[in-house]
């Protein structure tokens, strides 16, 4: 059976330092964001799996702020496993982001709250 509280379980994994996504046992399809069934097939046999954490930038935007508040970036990430998600890149200048760049997941804390971010892939 799939997760019955997918968002809650995802956040508990994140709080313990793990980025987890779902995969259907029957179809093998990877799923993000977490839900009770695979989109498209309705397969309700999703299990939690740990993705590689690797991905590429599908698109990006930089949101302008009034100084001295720094501008911030938003990226859409294509995970190696297939699903796409929204995130923010850290460890790279906003003017250095390019479509297609190789990135990897990192969990940082915004106060008490763990947040899934991405940084340029090691060795790139």
């Amino acid at each position, binding site marked *: 059976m799939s997760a019955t509280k997918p968002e809650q379980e995802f956040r508990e994994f994140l709080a313990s330092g793990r980025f987890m996504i779902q995969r259907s046992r029957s179809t093998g399809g990877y799923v993000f*964001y977490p839900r009770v069934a695979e989109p498209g097939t309705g397969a309700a046999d999703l299990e939690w799996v740990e993705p590689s954490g690797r991905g590429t930038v*599908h698109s990006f*935007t930089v*949101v*302008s702020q009034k100084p001295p508040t720094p501008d911030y970036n938003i990226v*859409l990430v294509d995970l190696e496993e297939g699903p*796409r*998600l929204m995130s923010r890149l850290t460890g790279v200048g906003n003017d250095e982001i390019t479509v297609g760049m190789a990135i990897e997941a990192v969990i940082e804390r915004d106060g008490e*709250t763990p947040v899934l971010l991405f940084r340029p892939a090691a060795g790139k």
Partner: protein
Amino acid sequence: MTTNERFPRGRTAVVAAATHGIGEAPGQSSIDLAAMAGLKALQSANLSIADVDALYVALPDDMLSGLSLAEYYGIHPRITGNNRTGGSAFLTHALDAAMALDAGLCDVALITYGSNTRTNTVRYPAPPGSSPYEAAYKPLLASSYALAARRHMHEYGTTREQLAEVAVSARNWANLNPDAYMKGDLSVADVLNARPVSSPFTVRDCCLVTDGAAAVVMTRADRARDIANRPAYLLGGAAATTHRYIAAMDDLTVTAAAMSGPRAFAQAGVKHEDIDVLELYDAFTINVILFLEDLGFCPKGEGGRFVEGGRIAPGGVLPVNTNGGGLSCVHPGMYGLFTMVEAFQQIAGVAGERQVKDVDVALSHGNGGVLSSQATLIFGSDATL
């Protein structure tokens, strides 16, 4: 997808349309504005609220606005429609109204909308809402569209200047419209040098934030001829949905208009060269480029080049957003109904200085969410029946 859709082509029509409170309407609530727009549209058709037996509405601050407006008017509609697909909602209302009218389930359908987004003291939540998986990254409404624009630039070489051309064309139309909120000269350089919002967009790539209301009245075709000099017959229409939040949009460069458009054209039995004016929901400049492509007015990826040189501006070969659009005329939050009002006025021949000559076929296109819901209507004059 069903291939034998039986849309009641030309059997219903918009017989009256009105706008109200465009720009700033301080002190008026969203329902006040919507109610007044509805009254103005009914009055121009020599009808009253007592004639309305199908009421369609979506307000920004009231989940049950269909019930609220029925109460406000003191009517007991046989059909109350409150579908909320974002800014495209009102075009889906028209599709439902056409089928209900044709089936004899109702006789007079009123579709209305109003919002005091600019002057109210309470900030409404952005219509697309907030995904728990995106909120931490603080996307503006503009950011989701900006991500689509960036991807279009990456895949097709669309330029910053081409996006700006859309805003410039809209402004040139607005300069011909006495009701438009934002007027004055606007150049491509002005757009590029405006305040940055969410790259690649500046504030001039983004729709206005205004107050305003719109309404249309629909009846069956037999009655339409007695009410309006030149009714806008609904020849075809379709809606499609692909996602809600931007990360779930399969291809950021192809919207559901690629599904709704061909269905609407097939139902209407018209060709692209028959379309005299297009009223496209321009929440952001990229919208117009995407919709021109997805609706088949140019090949995928060519939208940027297509809008260059004033092709969609006054005097251009393809008039687009002849009221000035959401970019320069009015945008209270869910603009879709204004595309229907302008399509009606262009067919009716009452658009004043911005009137396009001899309009027989007008396309109205609504967008909801973050490129999520798309609805296309094709209207025609008597000559198209």
